């Protein structure tokens, strides 16, 4: 099952796209595992994900910590801390 990966703000800019649809390999246990796997896709991904402390995530639109279980999501979003209001 393909998973939609979404990026926002400077994460999106460093990667150069706001969305990509990927078949995730077996063995990705946590959201952090997914981030580490994505970081190998391009220099832009590596730069965006260089400091996981600056990243936040949502799995199927539920906000989670990076050490949360990944499961088999339809959609994962990775982004900086929010700054609305």
């Amino acid at each position, binding site marked *: 099952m393909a998973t939609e990966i979404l990026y926002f703000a400077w994460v999106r800019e460093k990667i150069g796209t706001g969305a990509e649809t990927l078949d995730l390999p077996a063995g990705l246990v946590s959201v952090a595992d997914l981030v580490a796997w994505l970081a190998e896709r391009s220099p832009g991904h590596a730069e965006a994900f260089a400091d996981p402390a600056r990243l936040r995530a949502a799995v199927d639109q539920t906000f989670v910590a990076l050490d949360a279980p990944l499961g088999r999501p339809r959609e994962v979003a990775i982004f900086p801390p*929010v700054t609305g209001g």
Partner: protein
Amino acid sequence: MIAVTVDPAPIDIGAEYAAIAVGGAGGIATFAGLVRADDGVEALTLEHYPGATEAALVALAEAAVARWELNAARITHRVGRMVPGDTVVFVATAARHRAAALEACAFLIDRLKTEAPFWKKESLAGAERWVEPRCSDDAAAARWNENA
């Protein structure tokens, strides 16, 4: 009654107020957040996570209505490009009495800043920079924790 809007159109505060000033509340509190011209900022661009943003705002509004027994809550957030003086966000709460309306309004804007997926980018002097979150925003949001 809960109403949540995320839209690039300018916020019409008169229309927003008229929409919440129905239904027999005894007190209405409102908050408007405006674009500041700090450091010579010429424009502010708001990005968001469509779908998840609206869901987060509805969840906040539902929590406020339940906690303060509100008659109504409205959250209207603009996205896209704005200039100093433009209204970024408008929050309104209606309740039987003022304390509930005022507290719920402050709760909504404090929590929105840390829980709703919006990101601000400033344009100034030909350059652009993403706004960094502030520790004071986390502290303002945390003061509404029920177990604090």
